[in-house]
């Protein structure tokens, strides 16, 4: 058996939504290059829904797959729904991750939630 599931390998080798959004409504960054993983998420929000999401990730196969998967799960959903997605949900959607990858590389939901928080903070400052 391979180290990663087929789904992980697919999202890792062909990641969805790679990139940056220049006029993003929110940006969230988690991780630490010293530990080997860092993710930056950019979102556009319209009518309280994630209209667009892009990310850049430095890290192992799991870190890249997790980022790709959560970006797909979040697209088009309301901000509140996305805030309820956990790192665990992402791992499950990928068909599981090796145990030693569950803690260090499975940070996609955290990064996206941080971007949403950034969006909310900016919105509150305007009004």
């Amino acid at each position, binding site marked *: 058996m391979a180290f990663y599931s087929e789904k992980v*390998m697919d999202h890792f080798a062909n*990641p969805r939504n790679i990139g940056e959004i220049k006029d993003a409504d929110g940006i969230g960054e988690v991780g630490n*290059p010293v530990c*080997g993983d860092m993710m*930056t998420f950019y979102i556009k929000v319209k009518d309280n829904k994630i209209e667009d999401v892009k990310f850049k990730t*430095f*890290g*192992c196969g799991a*870190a890249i797959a997790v980022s790709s998967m959560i970006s797909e799960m979040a697209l088009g959903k309301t901000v509140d729904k996305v805030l309820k997605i956990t790192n665990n949900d992402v791992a499950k959607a990928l068909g599981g991750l090796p145990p030693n990858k569950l803690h260090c590389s499975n940070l996609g939901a955290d990064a996206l939630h941080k971007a949403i928080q950034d969006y909310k903070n900016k919105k509150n400052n305007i009004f």
Partner: protein
Amino acid sequence: MKQIYLDNQSNTKLDERVFSVMRPFFLEYYGNPQSIYSLGCVSKNALEIARKQVASYIHANASEIIFTSCGTESNNLAVKGICEALKSKGNHIVVSAIEHFSVLNVVKKLQKDGFEVTYVSVDGKGNVSETELLRALRKNTILVSIQHSNAEIGTIQDIKKLVSAVKNSKVNDFVVFHTDAVSSGGMMSMDVKKLGVDALTLSSSVMYGPKGAAALYLKKEICIVSQMDGGAQECSKRGGTENIPAIVGFGKACEIAKEETIVNNRKVKKLRDKLIEELPKRIEYVYLNGSLENRLVGNVNFSIEFVEGEALFLLLDANGIMAASGSACASKNLKMSHVLDAMKVNVVVGQGSILFTLSKYNTEEEINYVLDEFPKIVKKLREMSPLYSYFIKTGKRKLSAS
């Protein structure tokens, strides 16, 4: 898809000539060498021929070769066995910081049993310093264990110089010098007499021989306490029925190594040098780990900045190229390789380490394929790396999340 194997420090393909001599010992000559009927004698003879072949490769006497099951076992036997034999004289051990885990974890265990350990550091290229080694020696030092070469960075130590420094230090008259030469096996010629070592580890599985056989060379006058107790095999220094097919294969692999290493090395070194010269021309921000001069002929180890090593070797694998990495994510314990750490390689840069180890079976066509594919893989990963885009925008290196 092509399959290009460039992880020969972890295992080599068996030489077909080795397989041919092993085959009859599975199906025809299956006698136990300890039995004195004819089938047993065939095995016993084969065992002793293999012992001579291994001894001849490293210029030892056949009676100084103890067969074991793997390099790890030989290192365990050497370190534990010598320390146990000399414990009435002292309890201090000196090892380098970049030894294989089969030395490092053994001395860690011995520490719990009351032995004291000094780890000698290495310079930025992985060389053990003679001055530091001499400083580490004490009146009660019983064992020095320093590897012949390093599997990960390819640095070859000047063992002859280090042995003579230890022996001339006159710190005491019983200190034993062991060297783990697993990574050098089949990759270079070795002469235990010229090196001056008291004990040397050699393993079959990385020198085109089978898995399941290895050796510990132990100089005639050096005492050792067995770690595998049982029958009288290996002069009671290592009990257990001998793995005759594997040992026969190991002997043949040593015979071939003795005759062909120099010729093979010319070819392997040419391919290695092509990778070392060409990759930095095709990829920016790459750094060679280890020494360029005293380097194993098959070893190429680069740190590729802004990308992570596991991602690199998974994408290489997806393109049919098998390599290794010293990054934290690529290891089971999620720590960067202790070798890169000891060389004080920047942790962020070390995360992007990639290791190609070549063998006599690799071809120029394969190396050209790697030179074509690898830069594309690095480009792909850099395009998705926030560290790279930050660097391109600001010219600065990002060290943590903002």
